[in-house]
């Protein structure tokens, strides 16, 4: 065999390898719909079809009307459609911090980050006007919005909306909490909020009144004596990262 042929062969084989290694088609993009893939078949370009009017999708038969509307007849109710447990409350706190705190702030005074960047002043849940509203009203506002308040119907499931409403109530009670509200065996090293200061030495109540700092690290919920669920003293919370 001649050397030339041999060399040509290797060159051909290796360049073929190089070229092939650059290919990634064949089965990578299959003609099937995955979430959010567009469609050339339907005129609106969506592969996910919209629900037809007057049809009920699986799992969307809303038999418990109160759970899904927050209304008894046409009046907003003031009770919860399911029992509020510690787990519901924790879920409520988590969801509130995700969806509401950008505007209403973590303590619910309406001075969140987005408000600081120029959004309309959000409601201060501690104002008499808002504190006296029913939980059914909170549910309705989350579902349909109100004034400058956007609706969160697409982002938050109905049970979570109730959990948030419950947590708003907890925030309101917490603002007016006193040491006597904390069971004696859970007080431990907790101090009354009138004695507490922020890390810059500003009295806590004054800091809250002036809007806290509205950022993610405002009043550390869970360590404040007014938190609805004071942690056991000396018992670190899950995943706490020590400095």
């Amino acid at each position, binding site marked *: 065999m001649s*050397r030339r042929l*041999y*060399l040509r062969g*290797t060159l051909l*084989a*290796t360049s073929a*390898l*190089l070229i092939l*290694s*650059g290919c*990634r088609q064949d*089965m*990578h*993009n*299959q003609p*099937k719909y*995955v*979430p*959010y893939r*567009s469609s050339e078949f339907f005129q609106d*370009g*969506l592969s996910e079809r919209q629900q037809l009017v007057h049809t009920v999708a699986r799992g969307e038969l809303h038999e418990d009307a109160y759970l899904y509307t927050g209304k008894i007849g046409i009046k907003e109710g003031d009770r919860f459609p399911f029992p509020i447990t510690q787990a519901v409350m924790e879920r409520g706190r988590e969801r509130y*911090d*995700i*969806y509401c705190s*950008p505007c209403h702030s973590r303590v619910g005074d309406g001075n969140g*980050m*987005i408000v600081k*960047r*120029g*959004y*309309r002043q959000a409601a201060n849940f501690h104002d008499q006007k808002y504190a006296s509203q029913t939980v059914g009203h909170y549910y309705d506002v989350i579902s349909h919005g109100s004034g*400058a308040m*956007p609706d969160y119907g*697409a*982002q938050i499931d109905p049970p979570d909306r109730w959990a948030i409403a419950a947590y708003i109530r907890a925030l309101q009670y917490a603002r007016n909490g006193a040491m006597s509200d904390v069971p004696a065996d859970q007080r431990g090293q907790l101090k009354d909020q009138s004695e507490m200061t922020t890390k810059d030495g500003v009295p806590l109540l004054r800091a809250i009144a002036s809007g806290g700092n509205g*950022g*993610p690290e405002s009043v550390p919920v869970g360590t404040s004596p007014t938190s609805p669920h004071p942690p056991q003293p000396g*018992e*670190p919370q*899950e*995943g*706490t*990262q*020590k*400095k």
Partner: protein
Amino acid sequence: MQIFHRSTNTISRATIFGAIFIVAVLLWASIQFQRSPYVTYAEVARPQPAPFSHQHHVAGLGIDCRYCHTSIETSSFAGIPPTKTCMNCHSQIWTGAPMLEPVRESFRTGKSLVWNRVNDLPDFVYFNHSIHINKGVGCNTCHEPVDRMPLMYNFASLQMEWCLDCHRAPEKYLRPRDQVFNMRYEQPSSGKPIVVDGKSYTEQLSLGTDLVHKYNLRSVADITSCSTCHR
């Protein structure tokens, strides 16, 4: 009859070696090429309809991932926010900014914004976000600190060996579930221990091993079996 001189024997031997060498180098080069950003698109930003900045919205404004990627805890797909989600805020913020015009237009006309996919697995691979989130794999283990990205790019290659590297030893990466969305999470060290269930950990492997039990992870054989990802 002798055409070639005897000395060519050595030359031909040398070329055989040379050829093997060349083939080896080219093979190596093509493997490296296959893994390179040119093919995997790692660290390359894609053109998008609006210059959406995670750095600005996540680190700057403190918005949680789940505000926009709503389905991440419950479904395989993280979810890309609809235009309405942007308009929650941008109905009042930066309402005149030209760079937000595509967003406003989409809201007016009801036509979807078309975001270009950044992380894109081949269709023959099954991936599921919710299980990773619920078993304590943080977003930034796979997506790197998104909150430092003015424009989105993917950091990992998303190749099979990358998935398997973790599936073979998940304890190297697991973290407590409540830290999954924390882009600034650091693995435990003696300077910064992490407390879970009252036990303090100073080292990733011991934390990871305990979390594997706590979150009931399946066996390595189970999650590295081909049919986990190719089904």
